[in-house]
């Protein structure tokens, strides 16, 4: 089960992980974007971190929605509305629960993914975060369906995420800033796909 406390420590872990990887993500965005993805994500989760106290008394849905609102109003760029929508849809799907079953965890990730796709109109293969979120959600759904434990399922999903990140490298970007580069975007790892993987890893970390 994913308890409310897990969710809180997940959110907190997101902040840590994005602080550690700020420069790394920005560097990835330098190659095929405008060199701000790490800074954007860090700014957003730092804001979440500062308001962390105010999340304590909330249920899972409210926590995730509150994270969403903070991201929307502090990240900016493409990733702000996208991750904002991601957490918003997750929170809406989670509702006023205090814990989630493995299946429900898969469901909120699915909702988040659909939100991102609705907002950004990207499909798998476009070299975006969707290229990580899609295999992650599919892996989660497969494994919880097969009755695996939450930790097992997420471990699997992290592997799928890692593969998803690697798979963005040869792709030609068709959405977001990297798309302007056309052929020249080949050979570079997508920053947003990478941050999506980090967010999943943070969830995994919060469970151990």
């Amino acid at each position, binding site marked *: 089960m994913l308890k409310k406390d897990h969710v809180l420590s997940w959110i907190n872990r997101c902040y840590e992980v994005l602080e550690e990887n700020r420069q790394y993500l920005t560097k990835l965005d330098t190659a095929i*974007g405008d060199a701000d993805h790490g*800074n954007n994500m860090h700014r957003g989760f730092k804001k979440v971190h500062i308001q962390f106290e105010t999340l304590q008394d909330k249920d899972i849905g409210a926590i995730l929605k509150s994270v969403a609102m903070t991201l929307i109003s502090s990240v900016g760029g493409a990733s702000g509305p996208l991750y904002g929508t991601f957490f918003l849809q997750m929170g809406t799907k989670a509702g006023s629960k205090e814990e989630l079953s493995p299946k429900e965890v898969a469901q909120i990730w699915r909702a988040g993914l659909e939100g991102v796709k609705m907002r950004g109109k990207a499909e798998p293969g476009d070299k975006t975060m969707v290229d990580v979120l899609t295999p992650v959600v599919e892996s989660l759904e497969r494994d919880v369906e097969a009755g695996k434990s939450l930790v097992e399922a997420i471990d699997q999903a992290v592997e799928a995420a890692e593969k998803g990140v690697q798979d963005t490298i040869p792709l030609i970007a068709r959405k977001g800033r990297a798309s302007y580069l056309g052929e020249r975007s080949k050979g570079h790892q997508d920053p947003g796909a990478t941050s999506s993987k980090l967010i999943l890893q943070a969830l995994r970390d919060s469970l151990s």
Partner: protein
Amino acid sequence: MKKLINKPDDVIREQLEGMQAAHADLLKVNYEPFYITRAGGPVKGKVALVSGGGSGHEPMHGGFVGHGMLHAACPGEVFTSPTPDQMHEAAKAADGGAGVLNIVKNYTGDVMNFEMAAELAMADGIKVQNIVIDDDIAVKDSLYTAGRRGVGSTVLIEKICGAASEKGYDLEKLSALCRTLNQNGRSMGMALTSCITPGNGEPSFEIGDDEMEIGIGIHGEPGIKRDKIKSVDEITEMMTVSIIEDKPYTRKLKEWDFGKNEWVERELTDEPLKKGDKVIAFVNSMGGTPVSELYGVYRKMAQITDKFGLKIVRNLIGPYITSLEMQGCSITLMKVDDEMIKLWDAPVYTPGLKWGK
């Protein structure tokens, strides 16, 4: 990093404080969240023209707030779209009862954030339209990309639509004008050097001492191709001819449908410039290129437009839509009719653009 700044994290706020100190007669800066409005408050009965985008393009947009141009501007972090809450607050502060027109440059982030902002403002009962500007012909198609970027045309459009708002155009008419101007404008840019964002402290792209980057946008992102530096005549010819010979460009842009009460996609086709067209010619510095060199560009550009039978009726030359301290330039040609020329000539009184009274 060679910049006149204090701590990178404080750059936006401090520069806004400087603007406020310098132009208290023209504008008012709000700090939580960041937005800039005209000093006099909302203009009753006139459509409020609002724009915004990442910082680092100054004077655009904050420097264009004032009589005859914008009613409000939302500065984001450097090269990062502002957030919906800023835009929403700005819309509320600028609305004079006749609605709000958001001028949105076509970047994934800007478009999404302004959409969310429009929804928030509409929930408050403010009438809002978003018109997306996409004039950068360096981006060839919209099927396999995020579509053409909004660049130089934005400045001309903010000036002309600003005058139209003063003249009393309602939201629908102003939106139509804005849309037409966007379809009438085409731009292309190039860089000799990369800029450095304060947050990173390192060049956004590496470039050799004898190289230039063609088809750049305004965010320090790499362009569409790398080349050896050529003479200003060759560079200008390449850019001007590309603009003039650019094929019809078709794509879908989202606007709000006030009948259906939802976002709809409009398919729009921009027709190429043709012989006899009157144009405004805009030669822009990316920030680090001095105006003297822009005159070198203008000279060749005017020779070429002449040869193609275009008539330059007005021009603008200088650093108006910049990429921090990047060296380089862009050219914009925008077809205009007599009404648009009149609106161009109308008085404007902002920190970044001033004429008439």
